[in-house]
């Protein structure tokens, strides 16, 4: 007997994850909501972790996608972000779930992803310092919480809020790709440079969309002496 965390429908526990993923945890979403989520599996882009099955052949080259190749061809950005891995495809349903969580403020929803993300990212998170992508102060007050921080804390490992956002998000999202790729006006600064030096950093965010937010964060981390920077997001 359970209520689905997203649609609030009552459902029986007759189905379980163990059959699907060999997981012992109790599912928090009903079967119908779970079915609308698309796990990322199969061949993925070596860098950004997007599944190859979802986009046309001509947008990939070898084991990378075209977007990543563009980033890597730019000497300012090349090699900054070692790799990104995500749990789910950012499809219409997940967009709705994340919007309800972020914009309506239903923080509880993120719990639905805990069991799977914990097991899938176990090996990546083990030897890294987890740094959530921060919100600006205004945005965090408005929302009441930072979903990336909650997500980071749910993963096992050492979480340190070492980044600070100094530019308000809106200004950032209005920029074109060209603007975004220019490295001046980086919205982030590192709070504690010593805490970053020679560390292996794992950035945590809810969604990887263009990849520029994570690369900006990776940039300041590297400048502060981080050994290498990767990232994990819920959706890609």
């Amino acid at each position: 007997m359970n209520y689905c965390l997203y649609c609030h429908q009552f459902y029986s526990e007759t189905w379980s994850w163990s059959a699907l993923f060999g997981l012992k945890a109790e599912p928090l979403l009903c079967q119908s909501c779970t079915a609308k989520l698309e796990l990322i599996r199969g061949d993925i882009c070596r860098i950004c972790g997007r599944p190859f099955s979802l986009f046309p052949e001509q947008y990939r080259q070898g084991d990378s996608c075209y977007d990543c190749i563009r980033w890597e061809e730019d000497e300012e950005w090349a090699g900054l972000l070692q790799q990104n891995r995500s749990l789910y495809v950012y499809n219409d349903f997940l967009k709705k779930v994340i919007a309800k969580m972020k914009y309506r403020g239903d923080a509880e929803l993120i719990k639905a992803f805990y069991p799977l993300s914990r097991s899938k990212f176990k090996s990546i998170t083990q030897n890294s310092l987890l740094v959530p992508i921060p919100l600006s102060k205004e945005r965090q007050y408005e929302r009441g919480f930072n979903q990336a921080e909650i997500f980071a804390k749910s993963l096992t490992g050492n979480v340190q809020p070492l980044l600070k956002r100094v530019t308000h998000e809106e200004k950032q999202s209005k920029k074109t790709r060209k603007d975004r790729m220019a490295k001046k006006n980086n919205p982030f600064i590192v709070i504690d440079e010593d805490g970053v030096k020679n560390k292996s950093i794992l950035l945590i965010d809810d969604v990887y969309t263009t990849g520029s937010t994570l690369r900006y964060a990776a940039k300041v981390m590297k400048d502060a002496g981080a050994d290498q920077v990767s990232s994990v997001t819920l959706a890609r």
Partner: protein
Amino acid sequence: MRFVSYFLNDRLIIAPEILVENPDLKPVPFGELPDIELRSLNYSFKYSEKLQQILYGKMLLLDELQFPLKTIQEHYENGFVMYNPGVKKAKYGWQCNRCGNVNDHLFASFSCFRCKSESCVYCRNCIMMGRVSVCMPLLSWTGPDMKDKSNHNLMWQGELSARQQIASDRFVEQVGKSGELLIWAVCGAGKTEVLFHGIEKALKMGFRVCIATPRTDVILELAPRLKEAFPNTIIASYYGGSEERETPAQLVLSTTHQLYRFKQAFNLMIVDEVDAFPYSYDKTLQHAVSTASNPDALRIYLSATPSRTMKKEVIQNKLPCVKIPIRFHGFPLPEPKMVWSGEWKKRLERGKLPPAFLRWIKSQAVSGRRAMIFVPSVSIIEKVTELIRGHVEVIVDFVHAEDSLRKEKVARFRQGDIMLLITTTILERGVTVPFLDVAILGADHEVFSENALVQMAGRAGRSKDDYNGQVLFFHYGKSLSMLSAIKHIRDMNKEAGF
């Protein structure tokens, strides 16, 4: 958010922490403040009329008000605004003061940046309207009432049928008294016109009137008609995504969900389709209806298919009721015909349509008339559509609840572009199209209740130029619901004198 509290002239006063510069006062989350009293009204205070217009009769979060915190605080200190708890401890667990939710599983907590609490409890039931938590007060207006200076003459010139007139008179007679009245009007009775005179009387008495309905499409259809009938009255619509929320309206159209925003705002509350999802089974929505109306408000319920509970109350004389058993065009309701179609489920599984249904669909396709074909579940909807397409030349399509093209497809059906529309019970109400027949494939299935069948049958024969549409129940054994639905329709026709 956090507040400080202190004594001023022997009375406790509270203020948001950011407005007070006194390091001796310790800020606490709103929910941890001692009980606060309403301040006495300072008549010399120059209050904001804009704030009065927006907040009067409502319960809103600070985030919903585009006013500086300082302005709100001044209104509170002078007795014009009150900070009410949003979520508070109940006897067992928690209670949401906006939607009335007390279900444990619909509360959660989070580490809150606003009040710095590690577990700030919030309500998940009404989250779609913005988060109400223990630390966020709901604001209400406690200053003077708004003066209504407009003239609310009804400009509608149409005529009512004899039975519409009877219902309208009953309604008018009740305005000014409290209590309840059920208007039981068959599908196509013309219930909107029945409301006009009662609403006019209420508006002229200075009442605030609300029409609440479970469906946004009803609001979109009703708003222009009411604006035409009452051109001098300010009318506002409230539904997810509407933009008229700040209008100080005398007449409000609202989805039942949006009612959560109001508090003792209405003297006349009209609840449309009182039996329909989600009002009928969601206790918190019933709470919303009572919270939104004044304790002595008159409540009018509209329904073509009242629930069993309501009908029982009518029989026991607990609920006053007036019936409109006849359609506005004066013709009887089409009676459903039962057509035995064997094991329709098994045939569908084998990729075949039942022969009786197949014969009908072929003749329907060449008749030039549209048809709505209801099926019991979404899972077979595409299959049935495909099978039908294999037998007819006209355009066949399907629509279900989560169809992203739902609006578009219904519009194309209205225009006569789509001729045969396969659907589930989601379209049992609201779609009115002339020259339409109705078929229910698998009418004996348990999802089809008496009321659902009556509503589906009610789609046919709606216009006076086509009053005798066909209604067919394709079944594999008559169900009780089918028989009750047919009896329901016959009884109504009998009552109308046919």
